[in-house]
């Protein structure tokens, strides 16, 4: 059957459909990958700073990653036997490869990045901070607790 001069031929339509399907498949695969990683890393992660007995300071931070893509962080500080809870922080997270990106809905500001290395989360913001300030803020490591 003759077709209009500038219409897309059927064969080409079919290949376009295939390409579109493939694109959807690739995007879905990426989403699947992120979902799989999310499922894998959902847990409580703990970071402790224990300067006792030299100074009477002990800090415990718990970062909780939830299956719905949300996170919370609590900080407990013990100074000379007194326990103090800081204001909790929370927000949403997303995953890019091995990088976990936390966005705070409480504090706002720039996203915080972590590298997912096995059962640990290594902060990945020091290079950026150093580029701006010239100082190395060091590395925070959160270790999976459950």
């Amino acid at each position, binding site marked *: 059957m003759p077709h209009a001069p500038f219409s897309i031929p059927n064969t080409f339509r079919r290949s376009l459909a295939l390409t579109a399907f493939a694109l959807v498949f690739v995007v879905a695969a990426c989403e699947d990958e992120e979902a799989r990683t999310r499922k894998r890393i959902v847990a409580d992660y703990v970071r402790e700073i224990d300067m006792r007995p030299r100074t009477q300071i002990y800090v415990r931070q718990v970062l909780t990653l939830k299956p719905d893509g949300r996170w919370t962080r609590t900080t407990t500080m013990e100074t000379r036997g007194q326990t103090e809870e800081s204001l909790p922080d929370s927000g949403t997270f997303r995953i890019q490869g*091995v990088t976990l990106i936390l966005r705070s809905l409480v504090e706002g500001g720039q996203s915080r990045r972590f590298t997912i290395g096995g059962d640990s989360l290594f902060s990945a913001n020091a290079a950026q901070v150093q580029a701006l300030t010239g100082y190395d803020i060091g590395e925070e490591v959160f270790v999976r607790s459950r």
Partner: protein
Amino acid sequence: MRRSRIFQAGIALALLIFVGAKAFRYVQLRTQSPFVMWEFRAGGRFSVLEKSAFRQTRQRFACNDVVASARLCEMRVTGIGGVVRVLVNDRDRIAAVEFAPDSATPAMREEARRVAAEWGLMRPGASSRPVPSDTSASITRWRSEDGNWTAFMRYDRLGSTPVLVHMGDEATLAAIGASSPLAAYVLALNGVIEASDVPNAGAVSEVLATTMYRRATDPANETPSPRATTALELCTPERSDPILAATDRSLDGLTESVKSLLERAIAAVYPGSRLVTGDGMWVVSPTGVSERVSFSGMAGVDSAGIVTGVDFPARTAVASQRMDDAVPERFCRAPAALLFARPSDDDSLADAHVVDVDAEALASDVLTIDVVEPDAGTPGHIRVRYGAAYATTGWTGSIEWEAVFAEDPPRSTVRVPLLFSQHSQGAEEAVAGHLIVTGRPDGLIELSTIEQKQWGFSTRTVVVPVDSGGVLLGTRILERLAGTQPAR
């Protein structure tokens, strides 16, 4: 209808190209390491990496031969500052690539964490300490499922930033390691493989230890010493050395009895000459020409006699000058000698002998003398380390030998080459290194070198014919070495 067919053919062609490209990519990935850091990946083509690096840095890698079949290429990079080293085989394949950052910057720490996390997704890394008792260093290793690809990160005491990131192609590294007798050893010296992966590490280290710690060499590596002296005249100094008056500290450490024994021995072995002491020692010929003499590596005890190296520095200077002039017709000999002297009971001279340490060399000097007392089944002998100089029109060079002196009258019986140095005409620098006997095919000696350069270590292997008496000549060794492409 016809247009539809053209479209169909076009789509089929596009599909074919797509599938072909995917297949090509699959095959390419199979031949490259899954452990990638930035653009660094073992198994890839070095020329591709080099082009990319040049595009980004406007610099080229500096490459040096490690063995005949592989070179080590190095480049300093900025950004995350450090040194990239790439071991490339003779087919342009990257056998190993490593990055040593200059310092533990936050950028390097975070990049290393990211890379380690990506590698950890493929295969979990295994952490250990290179030396279990050493808590100041640790290492995390990854290995692909098929074992062909490896990677590791080495950390120092702080442990958060690697001091070295290494990615290797095990099959290619093994092939390079097997390409010559000391290739694996030299790869380990360059830090490209680990010492535990060197099959002959113990044996090679043992040979090197004999050189470094003056242990007796392995009899398996001995060849007969040359007996026939080179038909060249002895070098003659241009002028007499003035005798300098003794000072308070002249001849410190030389006892009167040894001095007396030397005086009598010199008169005996160089008839008509006498030993004169002042601020040094001189041998004065029957015609009154004085020549400074030095005694080196003196060994033995007064009552049993002494053995010492005898060297005439002015003769050596003449020999060296003529070697540098590179006119073989004007070469002359300035051999160092061993002087044996034994006193009798009444303190007179019982006997004295002088023996050239090397009958072949143009010049020589005695470095050390070790008297080995007779032991069960082993007759007493003397082990002498000496340097021997050789030259032709194209090069000058020297070899350090360990020779065994035995028999009565004493003579050099067997020897083992230990070290060499060679300066080829036109070359800016001399090449030098250890010599190790790595094979003894019929009528030949296989020698391998270990040469230390500013950039690292290299090895070459040469096969040197021995003469009809089984003698391995220093000149032949240096000729063969000059004939191989010197590692830059």
